[in-house]
């Protein structure tokens, strides 16, 4: 029988190893799997390369993972947002690496990684410093830059509803990077607000087919990053 449900968030992340590449879903707070990130802090795996659009805010979630010195390198499009203090400080101090990728290129690289496409050409970033040193090529008189698919050892994703096969739906703009990150990791770990029986999700509306998911943990009442930040909470506290 296929049963991807695991008992606890701690168990779900228990094999994330030092030096792993970890994709973390979310666009700002929306879709950020804060419980899985906090368990990764508990676990303490270090020297991580993290692929995520932003770098978190305040001193919880992704920002706390960075603050805890577990992240060697960030691959992201927008490392500074309102309330992000941890990454900018470490970056200015030269203590964390940054690979800055245009948001659409980041999304396409993740999608390519999941789809078995090792490289593709895109018009984004041509004639800018972000294309420096990259191979370019003309198609139909326009210049494109070659970008590579990205794959990760683990993806951490937050969804709305899941079943034991790993079929997922999302909620509003919390969908963002979740579906493509599910496809691009050796091991995809998902926290779900609701767990239902197979068949309860209409097969027409499944967003992430179960084949892309390895583990699902039920987090019925996830913390709100913005509330934790407003309360000046830290993790670990």
């Amino acid at each position, binding site marked *: 029988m296929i049963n991807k449900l695991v008992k606890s968030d701690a168990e779900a992340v228990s094999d994330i190893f030092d030096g792993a590449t970890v994709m973390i879903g979310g666009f700002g707070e*929306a879709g950020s799997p804060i419980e899985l990130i906090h368990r990764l802090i508990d676990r303490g795996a270090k020297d991580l390369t993290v692929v995520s659009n932003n770098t978190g805010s305040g001193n919880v979630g992704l920002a706390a993972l960075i603050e805890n010195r577990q992240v060697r390198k960030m691959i992201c499009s927008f490392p500074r947002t309102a309330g992000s203090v941890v990454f900018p400080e470490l970056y200015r101090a030269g203590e964390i690496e940054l690979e*800055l990728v245009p*948001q*659409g290129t980041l999304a396409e690289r993740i999608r390519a990684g999941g789809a078995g496409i090792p490289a593709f050409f895109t018009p984004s970033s041509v004639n800018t410093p*972000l294309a420096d040193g990259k191979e370019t090529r003309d198609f139909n008189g326009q210049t494109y830059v070659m970008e590579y698919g990205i794959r990760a050892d683990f993806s951490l994703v937050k969804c709305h509803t899941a079943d034991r096969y790993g079929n997922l739906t999302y*909620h509003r*703009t919390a969908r963002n990077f979740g*579906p*493509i990150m599910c496809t691009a990791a050796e091991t995809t770990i998902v926290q779900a607000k609701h767990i239902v029986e197979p068949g309860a999700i209409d097969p027409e509306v499944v967003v992430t087919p179960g084949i892309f998911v390895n583990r699902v943990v039920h987090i019925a009442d996830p913390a709100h990053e913005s509330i934790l930040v407003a309360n000046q909470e830290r993790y670990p506290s």
Partner: protein
Amino acid sequence: MGWSRIEMAQKAAQDIPDGSYVNLGIGIPELVADHVPAGIEVIYHTENGLLGMGPVPDEANRDIELINAGKKYVTAIPGACYFHHADSFTMIRGGHLDISVLGALQVSKNGDLANWSTGKPGAIPAVGGAMDLVAGVKNVWVITDHVSKDGQMKLVNNCAFPLTGKGIVDRVYSNLAIIEISDEGLKVRELAPGVSFDYLQEQSEPKLIQ
């Protein structure tokens, strides 16, 4: 003298054709949505996965999982839809959007745009979706103060800051004027109240066409 932020947004809003698909950047561009003339239907795209973005909700209807690219609370109109990031940038990169309205640090005479980094040491570079938008969207409009807060010209011969894209700006809505950028040069379409062409030229590095 000149237009306020809201008036700049109004000017841009009035130029959006009925039925357009439009992406609004963070800052003054966000104000455009509030000023589209009655009778015109515009569909707003936000790159974090929503087509059919509606107005800002009242406090009771905020949802931390319904935000725009600037991470601010928004709503969804009837007929909206959600999608993931790769599909969102299929819309952008694939040429499906009609207009991208962006802010700027500098715009050059040939339509280069710099809007993501001052390139200064210690600055945290952050590009977001800007490079995809300028590469993929048919019409790129910039809304910006004509001169920076510290008195530097923003309309320049060559951008000193790192580029977002080369030769991609079609039109600038500044607090002083509306300027079209084409192969023929920088043509002033409209001057703000109280702004003379000569004054505008003084505030602009490239030669302008009246």
